[in-house]
């Protein structure tokens, strides 16, 4: 739609230019003869630009670099489905290279770094204009086995320049690693254990909401986590602004 209206605009400008030229002509000769041949130029693809801010609302969970994927039909992850290896890598280690290479992505970008509690980061995404355009987000809660936050799909097809969509996000469980909270399985700074491991040993290999951190101060003696790593929903705030 936008490409079409841009095309119409350039055609209109050409018409105006030729009629102005005609007005400047005083000898009343047929203006058509004075016209330069009209060259129809294929319009450049229109590029949308979105600025996304991402705020960490937790008490003590670092969030890994935010991954943003633009897509038209197939989101990179969905509640109730089995996580891709890319999402498993994010949820277990925070690494997002594999995830961002999603075959259905129209464009993808990673925030420069992770953010601590109370911090906000921002990232810019450029994507060619589409009739149907959605964004998906994911980032790991670092001091967990396989918790991540994000949004599966946000429809931004009709978001106008200068307008924003603001959402808070809950904690999801990727379903790819048991929530043991042990020192050797939690990669975040509270434990510095192993990140990604391809073995899937959770109670069900599906994405659900996360039940929260138990911690060694609340009955899980083998947990490397304490009260400060506990969280409740929502865990982050995401604001999408179309800037171009």
């Amino acid at each position, binding site marked *: 739609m936008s490409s079409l209206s841009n095309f119409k605009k350039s055609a209109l400008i050409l018409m105006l230019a030729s009629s102005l030229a005609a007005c400047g002509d005083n000898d009343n000769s047929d203006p058509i003869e004075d016209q330069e041949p009209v060259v129809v130029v294929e319009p450049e693809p229109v590029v949308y630009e979105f600025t996304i801010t991402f705020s960490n609302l937790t008490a003590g969970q670092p969030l890994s670099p935010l991954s943003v994927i633009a897509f038209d039909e197939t989101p990179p992850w969905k509640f109730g489905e089995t996580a891709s290896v890319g999402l498993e890598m994010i949820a277990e280690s925070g690494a997002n290279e594999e995830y961002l290479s999603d075959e259905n992505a129209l464009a993808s970008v990673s925030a420069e770094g992770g953010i601590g509690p109370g911090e906000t980061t921002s990232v810019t995404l450029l994507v060619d204009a589409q009739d149907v355009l959605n964004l998906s987000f994911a980032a790991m809660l670092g001091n967990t086995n396989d918790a991540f936050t994000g949004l599966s799909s946000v429809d931004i097809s009709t978001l106008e320049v200068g307008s924003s969509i603001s959402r808070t996000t809950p*904690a999801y469980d990727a379903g790819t690693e048991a929530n043991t909270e042990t020192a050797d399985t939690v990669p975040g700074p509270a434990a510095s254990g192993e990140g990604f491991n391809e073995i899937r040993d959770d109670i069900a290999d599906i994405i659900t*909401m996360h039940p929260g951190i*138990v911690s060694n101060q609340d009955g899980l003696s083998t947990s490397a986590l304490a009260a400060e790593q506990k969280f409740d929903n929502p865990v982050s705030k995401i604001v999408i602004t179309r800037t171009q």
Partner: protein
Amino acid sequence: MKASAFTVATLLVVASQSTLAAELEVEITNLTKGLYFTPVLITAHDSEDKLFEVATEASSALQAMAEGGDISALVTQASASSSDIAENPAAGLLAPAASATAGLTTTDGNEYLSVTAMLLPTNDGFVGLDSWKVPTEAGTYTVYLNGYDAGTEANNELVVDGSGAPGVLGIPAAPGGQAGTNGTGITTGDTNTMVHIHPGALGDDDLESGNSDLNNTVHRWLNPVAKLTVTVK
């Protein structure tokens, strides 16, 4: 002139009344990682005939649902008050991350939607929605539901056969497994005896003994516990 104005006004009234009845599709999704929902009850009702209300005492019908998953008394109550009823759309338990869909045609005056289902394994926890006003405009609406405590039974967190009967202390079943045995019991009293937001399960890390028969890495949850997707046709 007066007569025709009257006719138009009458027609408008008739038209607006007929929009009160609605054709709905209601999908409920279990958002939790380790809890099961017992048979789900969905009713459309007037402003009075709700299934439950926070900060009030649970009815015996609500208690039977919350302690044992038995919705028959709530259904009887809802039928008697001319509510529109969608019963047990999952045909049994609704597992973590699973969804069930029910069609519901509401009659005039039944403008509100309520939902209940027991959370297993809990003593008297349930997922609930109280009197959500159904929009008159066609469209798809999303509502997130919290976990409630009926306030009728102490949350001792012990799995006991036969404890689904109202007044019998214990959790009747842990459908997903992962529960323990021989716990000594978390508590013997319910400090808030009104319907309230469930404080969550505690569980423990000892499946052979400990305070609780629940597993603290499996049977805890955070709100919301369910998503309701309502399509108004």
